């Protein structure tokens, strides 16, 4: 069956901001879908509020709307673009929810938009747990016993019937929000309440406990001829009870016989046809009882997903591309297999290697958060590794994590083993480090059966861990001079032991291990991911390393550049850097280079075999990078685009003779080293906030006392403000200094005088050694003290004079030339009392690059990559700062609702997971759009609660007055209320937290507050602020914690009350 010719324009919603549970994988999937559909001649209209995506590059669609993903925006866009079809299955849960909303409101019918990829019936049946369960029951497909409840009474009746323990979940919620285990009746009311609150339809789902069962997931594909294929079977190391996004997973499944596997395959097929998924990709999750083999279906997602991205990278099958093509009417046998070039997509991959995924958590950023893993996903990224065997892949995955650990016992080059011994009771508690604890327990000699019972890890995995441990023990006792040593060393490398770990075991340096290996001829080979276990020759150079006999890399003699990716997504180093790496690949390809990508993050566009000419899926460690360099012999390596990960390797790579393109590692080092950098600024006569360098706590005390509190502590060589802190008094200095030294061991700290009420400005620029061209000047809406990654930001600045902007441009130019920058440059400024100060310079890709590029139309990373390859800006026609039409507001999206217990106040340590952009001709409208896109709709009427600290009272008055004039009722805490009353503003005083009920939090929870302005100060105020924020989060009430943000919100509300939001594609904007 050929493609459908009854459709011409296809609307694709993206998934919006990166949040826990819905991340970069949807950029990967969406980009594939866009490319595939356009290649078939369809006109594609994309809507995605996230500017840090490749998919929102205007070249990838006919119309690209960086607009809020709301039914309102989509209806307007449908009205403008008149698509005849909508593909909702590559935009995550967001895409499906939009499809449901637009279908229910009749918009799709009204404009004649057909859903392709999944119909409404299928989405409803898959997303509504009750309907799904009923649908399964009717088809005699086994599921856990359970039911839906819309009240506590209903929930109790169900619980009595099923028995405890129980799993309580929220219907229609993302990433397991609102899910909890309940062990006894007393815990039920709270869990049910939370689940009902988290569910958009107020429904809790109550289910039999299948905790501890084995968990499997099948990634499947179906076309309209009912052809069906399993792309990948994934087995979780962590048993049921840990969200699959938080589980270590292995592909292919390892502990099922064919009989048992085929039961799952047959069930998956029946689930798809029963639910009515006619075309596209889907995943079906199963639980299998470890002792009886009883298999039940847990859930099905009729769309591409995080695990389908993983399965794509694990197998070489581009699931999203196939899903898009089958949605457009193709059958699988009509789609070629790109990897073999001679077979078709109608087949099931066979893997002759093993794949391990490990999630990456960021608990260090969220003190107070329960770090136990459960049904609600908490990880912010993941790594994947390929090896011929499970031990090899597992080792490589651990090395990819970049948590300072290179061995399964949890040790690392600068990190010893914990002293304590493991016991069985703690192994039952799933945490981010459970793998290491289990390994140590195996090493301690606890019986595998007892560890299996405690942890739920299948015995097979434990036996492999034991084999690794036995090897570790042999290595620790080995003598490199003995005759059998070469055999032992080769066996160790085949099990994935890294040189840095071997160095510790053998008591020699890592370089010595590498030298020894080379001398003994123990060298890595590169194998191809070919989808077919070598049955056919692979055409695509998608490679992983192993220690085998035959190398399949077959490098070409073309001029080539190696691009080092960013590794796992984490807070502070996210999709923005992958975006830049992809741009580098596109730009260098354009210049005629063969591009080689090295990365270990399966969620990304950079690890699509389509992005660079050659792809190495490898850990971003010195050893693995150097292996690839030695095999490929590139003309240059790009280390400046992947964030801190490749930068941290730059000096060692350069020392090893690897040619680094662009800005020299020395210049980068200089700008990162707080001491060196301060010297440079003094030489250039560029002001910096008063500061001092400290190498010890004692020095820090002296510096801080000299500057006067509050001070800002900044460690060197970190991203995302890791361990950066605002310290208000000496009492807490020691604690923060210690954390800062831990985050950046052996490096000096910079202690700044904190500039209260300063504005911060980011400048992104390009430099080629001769010329500096400003890309964008962006003003933070929050005052100084909030990390730039967490601050809302507007381009162009709305409150900075042309004079001051001119100074910043000048300083940027001076710095770019002084540092010899060749490529990207980001400078952070503070503006206080008419003075411009430089806070930081980053001669590398920065987080704002994609946002600035989308807003200005100048693709900064793309140009920078060309400059790094030797082009001059003048040759590229880039000599002037682009003019910006209208306002572009970036807003950060924070993960607090996924991480209960975390402090919710913003500070100098970055904690947002993603960003959105809003644009409009008017600042207020652009800000309003950014808030809507970030999930915080501003109210147009109602009551506003204001609680401001003493410094803010006068400025707060103006905001209160504006709100009152627009008809808002004013509520205020006693101090604020008294101040407002004095000038005659009608205000109702409300109790502070801790005073008699109803106090502020009660009012918020009762739904009597539509908007909150709260600028807390002082230790108690912070505590109160946290509770207010938690209540606001729970109730979805917008909360503004700085006066500038509040003022921006007021301005937004004012324009929103006067005019409708309009939506405009980037193509139209720039035409």
């Amino acid at each position, binding site marked *: 069956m050929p493609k459908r010719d009854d459709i011409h324009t296809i609307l694709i919603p993206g998934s919006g901001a990166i949040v826990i549970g819905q991340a970069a994988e949807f950029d990967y999937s969406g980009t594939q879908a866009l490319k595939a559909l356009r290649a078939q001649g369809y006109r594609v209209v994309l809507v995605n509020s996230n500017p840090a995506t490749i998919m929102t590059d205007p070249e990838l669609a006919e119309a690209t709307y960086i607009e809020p993903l709301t039914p309102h925006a989509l209806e307007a866009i449908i009205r403008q673009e008149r698509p005849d079809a909508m593909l909702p299955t590559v935009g995550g849960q967001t895409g499906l929810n939009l499809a449901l909303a637009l279908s229910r409101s009749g918009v799709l019918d009204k404009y004649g938009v057909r859903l392709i990829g999944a119909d409404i019936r299928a989405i409803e049946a898959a997303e509504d747990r009750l309907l799904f369960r009923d649908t399964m029951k009717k088809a005699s497909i086994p599921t856990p016993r359970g039911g839906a409840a819309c009240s506590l009474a209903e929930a109790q009746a169900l619980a009595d019937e099923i028995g405890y323990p129980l799993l309580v979940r929220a219907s229609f919620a993302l990433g397991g929000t609102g899910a909890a285990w309940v062990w006894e009746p007393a815990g039920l009311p709270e869990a049910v309440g939370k689940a009902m609150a988290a569910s958009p339809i107020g429904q809790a789902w109550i289910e039999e406990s299948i905790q501890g069962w084995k968990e499997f997931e099948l990634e499947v594909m179906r076309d309209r001829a009912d052809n069906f294929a399993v792309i990948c*079977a994934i087995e979780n190391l962590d048993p049921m009870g840990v969200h699959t996004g938080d589980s270590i997973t292995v592909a292919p499944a390892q502990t099922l016989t064919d*009989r*048992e596997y085929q039961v799952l395959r047959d069930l998956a097929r029946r689930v798809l046809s029963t639910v009515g998924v006619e075309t596209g990709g889907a995943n079906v999750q199963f639980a299998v009882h470890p002792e009886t083999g009883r298999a039940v279906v847990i859930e099905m997602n009729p769309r591409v997903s995080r695990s389908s991205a993983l399965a794509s990278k694990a197998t070489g099958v581009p699931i999203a591309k196939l899903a898009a093509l089958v949605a457009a009417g193709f059958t699988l046998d009509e789609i070629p297999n790109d990897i073999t070039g001679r077979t078709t997509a109608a087949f099931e991959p066979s893997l002759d290697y093993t794949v391990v995924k490990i999630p990456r958590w960021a608990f260090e950023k969220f003190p107070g958060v329960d770090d136990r893993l459960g049904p609600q996903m908490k990880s912010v990224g993941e790594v994947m590794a390929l090896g011929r065997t499970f031990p090899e892949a597992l080792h490589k995955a651990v090395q990819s994590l970049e948590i300072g650990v290179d061995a399964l016992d949890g040790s690392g080059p600068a990190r010893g083993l914990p002293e304590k011994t493991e016991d069985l009771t703690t192994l039952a508690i799933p945490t981010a480090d459970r793998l290491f604890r289990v390994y140590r327990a195996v090493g301690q000699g606890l019986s595998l059966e007892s560890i299996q019972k405690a942890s739920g890890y299948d015995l097979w995995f434990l036996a492999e861990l034991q084999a690794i441990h036995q090897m570790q023990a042999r290595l620790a006792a080995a003598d490199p001079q003995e005759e059998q040593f070469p055999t032992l060393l080769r066996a160790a490398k085949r099990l994935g032991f890294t040189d840095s770990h071997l160095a510790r075991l053998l008591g020699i340096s890592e370089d010595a291990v590498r030298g020894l290996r080379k001398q003994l001829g123990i060298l890595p080979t590169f194998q191809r991911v070919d989808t077919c276990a070598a049955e056919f020759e692979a055409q695509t150079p998608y490679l992983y390393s192993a220690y085998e006999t035959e190398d399949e890399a077959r490098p070409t003699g073309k001029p080539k550049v190696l691009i080092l990716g960013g590794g796992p997504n984490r807070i502070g180093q996210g999709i923005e850097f992958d975006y830049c790496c992809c741009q580098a690949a596109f730009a260098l390809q354009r210049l005629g280079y063969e591009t080689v990508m090295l990365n270990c993050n399966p969620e990304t566009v950079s690890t699509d075999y389509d992005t660079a000419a050659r792809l190495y899926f490898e850990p971003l460690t010195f050893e693995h990078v150097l292996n690839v360099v030695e095999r490929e012999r590139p003309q240059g390596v790009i280390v400046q685009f992947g964030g801190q990960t490749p930068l941290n390797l730059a000096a060692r790579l350069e020392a090893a003779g690897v040619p680094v393109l662009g800005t020299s590692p020395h210049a980068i080092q200089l700008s990162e080293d707080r001491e060196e950098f301060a010297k440079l600024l003094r030489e250039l006569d560029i002001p910096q906030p008063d500061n001092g360098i400290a190498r010890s706590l004692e020095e820090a005390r002296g510096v801080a006392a000299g500057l006067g509190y509050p001070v800002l502590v900044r460690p060197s060589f970190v991203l995302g403000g890791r361990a950066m802190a605002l310290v208000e008094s000496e009492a807490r200095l020691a604690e923060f200094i210690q954390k800062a030294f831990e985050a950046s061991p052996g490096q000096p700290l910079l202690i700044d005088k904190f500039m209260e009420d300063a504005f911060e400005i980011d400048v992104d620029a390009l430099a080629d050694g001769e010329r500096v061209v400003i890309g964008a000047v962006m003003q933070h809406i929050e005052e100084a003290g909030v990390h730039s990654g967490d601050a809302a930001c507007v381009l162009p600045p709305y409150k900075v004079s042309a004079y001051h902007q001119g100074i910043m441009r000048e300083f940027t130019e001076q710095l770019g030339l002084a540092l010899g920058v060749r490529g990207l440059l980001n400078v952070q400024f503070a503006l206080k009392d008419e003075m411009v100060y430089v806070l930081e310079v980053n001669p590398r890709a920065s987080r704002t690059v994609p946002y600035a590029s989308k807003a200005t139309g100048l693709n900064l990373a793309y140009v920078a990559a060309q400059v790094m390859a030797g082009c001059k800006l003048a040759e590229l026609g880039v000599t002037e700062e682009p003019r910006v039409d209208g306002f572009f507001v970036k807003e950060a999206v924070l993960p607090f609702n996924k991480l209960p217990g975390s402090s919710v106040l913003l500070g100098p340590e970055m904690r947002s997971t993603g960003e959105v952009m809003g644009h409009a001709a008017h600042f207020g409208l652009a800000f309003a759009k950014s808030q809507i896109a970030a999930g915080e709709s501003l109210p147009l009427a109602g009551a506003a609660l204001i609680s401001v600290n003493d410094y803010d009272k006068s400025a707060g008055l103006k905001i209160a007055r504006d709100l009152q004039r627009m008809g808002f009722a004013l509520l205020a805490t006693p101090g604020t209320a008294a101040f407002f009353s004095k000038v005659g503003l009608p205000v109702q005083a409300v109790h502070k937290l801790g005073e008699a009920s109803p106090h502020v939090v009660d009012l918020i929870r009762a739904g009597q507050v539509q908007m909150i302005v709260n600028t807390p100060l002082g230790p108690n105020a912070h505590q109160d602020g946290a509770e207010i924020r938690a209540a606001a989060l729970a109730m979805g009430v917008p909360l503004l914690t700085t006066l500038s943000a509040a003022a921006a919100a007021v301005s937004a509300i004012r324009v929103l009350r006067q005019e409708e939001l309009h939506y405009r594609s980037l193509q139209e904007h720039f035409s």
Partner: protein
Amino acid sequence: MEAAILVLQDGTVLQGRAFGAPADAVFELVFNTSMSGYQEILSDPSYRGQGVLFTAPHIGNVGINLEDDESARPQVSALVINHLSPLVSNWRAALPLADWLAQQGVPGIADLDTRWLTRRLRDGGTQKAALSTRGTSPEKLMAMVNAWPGLDGRDMVREVTCQAPYDWPGDAGSAWVMAEGNASTSRIVAYDFGIKENILRHLAAGGARVTVVPAATPAREALAFHPDGVFLSNGPGDPSGLPYLVDIVRELLDSGVPLFGICLGHQLIGRALGAGTRRLAFGHHGGNHPVQHLPSGKVLITAQNHNYCVAPEDLDPAEVEITYKSLNDGSLEGFRLKRKPVLSVQFHPEAAPGPHDAHGIFREFFQMIDQVVCHA
């Protein structure tokens, strides 16, 4: 750890780790890309005379159980793998793979670069090989390889067929096989050329009384059971070395009895219709082979295990409707006769191991029988 030596016909000598029985074996080495189901593959009589290399790197994880056998014992001559599981983990497991092989006299070699070997076999074609797990020298093994005639033109069926007719009683694995469609009450005679038990389970699940007969049973003796249909099984080796079976199949064709062939049975039907069979470069061995049903265009993911195929150009289009072809290499995967109730497929609808996409072909056989009975 005992050393094992594998030598290939082209002179390659490889050393690995021995497991299974201490023995010498000479065989034709083929690779199988199934990611699950080693027990079924090892006990499949079609592998008689062959050593199997599994491309899946982890073998032995789930041990051996009492339900998943395809015959009473391992049939392969040797096993070539990358990584042998240090223990068994599965609720149905009865014993470790290595113990089963040791009990049954089958040697295995582990810790080899199986991907490299697979690429050799893919590019250079199937090779003769010999394995020793008891210290036999490479030279001696090479001599064994050179002395061994190989499988071409040889009758391997004799080694695996049953000695006397019997009614299939069902077994422990039968519980895993569900009936496809309505139960039939037919009587089926199944020729055993090395029959996989899952075929018998499927025929029985369809409600049939199944009588298994030795390969050389003359057609008239088979027809004397008054079967509603006759089944021609899979089996090992080269169909061109089995002229006596081609004669029997020709008689069965002439009798007009509904006939269903799988794999070797299919090749024999092809030869009985006058078509040649030829060797494929490295055969089809795996559980992910897409075949297209030509009348509907639908694709089935099938289990396959064959080194030879029927030459489609030799089949008379007036008599034969080609119903299935391989999407990987376009080779013939199945046909029906236009004027006779004959159904023939190269792949394995009984799977075991592999996807169940083609189970419906058993139903098709029963429907064909029903139609013949109705018209009679």
